[in-house]
């Protein structure tokens, strides 16, 4: 039972790492990045390649840095260029980027499933209660909690964080206050995709690597973002934990419900507050 809850938290933690990136980007650019899942996937493959040479932690670093750079490029080339267009146009372009990334990864690494190793430091299990639990999974939980804590501290206590929160509330008004929203957005989108890279690497040893590994988790994190209240950081955290639990408990006790329940929850929330959560900001 307790093990099940922990497993739910592990998946919830991964979802949070992905969803919070979406929330960050949505806050500033009011765009839902459909390519986020494939950035997660690319991050995993980059990390895997370095890890396969024997540098697991190096892979983590490479992936995070590379994805941060990709994020900055994405913001400058796509989000900034298209900021005056209908947001749905930008969404379509990110969908195109998703297709390009998936194909590129298939061309380089192939379609076959790859197994991401667990770092030596975190191999093995510990006994929780009387059952063994992989140390690596505890590490995943620790990473998501650390990210959640530092992110909320950063947003709350730094000037940049304050600006980001302001811009997430209303980017136009913030821009009129003389704050450079484009520079903020560069930081925010870079950070968001860096987190996608981080979660890709962290998720690597849990999921098997394939060019489509990002799709399933992307849809789950969409659900998290919507349930959490499109644009809310704390909401995303709570919703990620909730979906993580539904995912895991459902898989064990109610396989049927676990698949459909998150979708139903999302539909219900959108219908209940179509404007409160999303409508007013699209």
């Amino acid at each position, binding site marked *: 039972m307790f093990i099940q809850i922990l497993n739910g938290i592990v998946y919830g933690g991964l979802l949070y790492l992905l969803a919070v990136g979406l929330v960050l980007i949505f806050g500033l650019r009011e765009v839902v990045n459909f390519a986020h899942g494939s950035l997660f996937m690319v991050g995993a493959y980059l990390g895997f390649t370095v890890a396969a040479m024997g540098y697991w932690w190096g892979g983590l670093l490479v992936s995070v840095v590379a994805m941060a750079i990709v994020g900055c490029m994405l913001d400058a080339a796509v989000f900034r260029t298209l900021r005056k267009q209908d947001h749905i*146009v930008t969404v379509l372009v990110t969908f195109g980027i998703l297709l390009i990334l998936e194909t590129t990864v298939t061309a380089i690494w192939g379609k076959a499933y790859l197994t991401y190793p667990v770092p030596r430091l975190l191999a093995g299990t510990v006994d929780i209660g009387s059952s063994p639990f992989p140390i690596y999974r505890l590490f995943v939980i620790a990473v998501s909690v650390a990210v959640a804590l530092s992110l909320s501290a950063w947003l709350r206590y730094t000037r940049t964080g304050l600006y980001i929160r302001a811009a997430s509330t209303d980017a136009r008004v913030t821009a009129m206050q003389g704050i450079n929203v484009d520079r903020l957005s560069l930081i925010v989108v870079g950070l968001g995709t860096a987190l996608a890279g981080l979660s890709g690497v962290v998720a690597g040893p849990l999921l098997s690597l394939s060019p489509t590994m990002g799709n399933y988790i992307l849809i789950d994190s969409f659900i998290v973002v919507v349930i959490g209240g499109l644009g809310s950081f704390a909401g995303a955290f709570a919703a990620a934990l909730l979906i993580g639990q539904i995912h895991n408990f459902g898989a064990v006790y109610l396989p049927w419900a676990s698949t459909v329940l998150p979708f139903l929850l999302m539909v219900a929330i959108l219908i209940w507050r179509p404007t409160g959560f999303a409508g007013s900001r699209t």
Partner: protein
Amino acid sequence: MSTIAHGAAATVRRKPLAGAALFVTTAVALAVGVALPWLVPTKIAMSLLAQAMFDALLATSVGFLILQNGRVSFGQAAFFGLGGYSVGVLIARHWVAPEVAVLIAIILPTLVAFLLGLVIARITGVAHAMLTLAVGQAFYEVVFRWRELAKGDDGMSFNLPRHLFGLSASGLQDPAVMMVLAWTILVLVLFALALFARSRIGQIAAAIRDNEERARFLGYSTMLPRALVYAIAAFIAAIAGVLSACYNGYIAPQMFHWSVSGFALIMAIIGGAKFIIGPAIGAVVLFYIKDYAGQFAEYWPAIVGIILVVVTLTMPRGVVGLAATLWKMRGR
């Protein structure tokens, strides 16, 4: 102002095709359909054209939702799959007469979309895209996991009955017959949509898309016209699903997959969702680029992605929009 859901048409003064011209064009297109078996050289080409027509129908469904409701759907495959699965499962299990199965397969998705439309029509923009994506994937997950229904992710083959509506059903799996049938249906669907756009309810729906609040204060209830548009769009997607399932004699969860929805949306955008015929043109163009790019088939999604990015950035009104603009410039 948005480019896809609104505004794009504003720059062109579209005189609706005059009534007579519409009838003549339709008649010519139908005649071409009858002549197709003599125009298309090989069985393979016929089969490709038939499948291009399925794509065109699905893209038309997505485009119609954009054109008449201003809503971008990432989940239209739900109704494509629902149509295909209804006909496949009902025929395979002999629960009802095959003719009834076909009717149910078309009516059920239409009804589902109508009810769903009543609920989700007020959700706009990016949220609508995410929601429809989720709804489509929910269907996918269900058929993927529900092995008893149609063998889950393996998909299920089924045999067509000997006769359908008094005609030999085996023709449905003959490329020449299916090509003509699908072409004819597409032409009739486009014709019907053109009539709808000029009808009272069509213009009211367009007004609601343009400015829902003002439409309400002019005395219209806005829910029903919107839901009707969802229903019509699903009706078209369901026809595509039924045709595709019958032609292949096979159904699989892939029919519901978001990539199917996504590609249909891309076809609609590339062709020009602001024109009734745009999505169909987009589908055919993409289909033949794909055929032409045969040796690069494994890079196909990336090619589509690049085309999509280029088209959204350089020709927001799609291929047909570009053609219309060029035509106008020529006239000057």
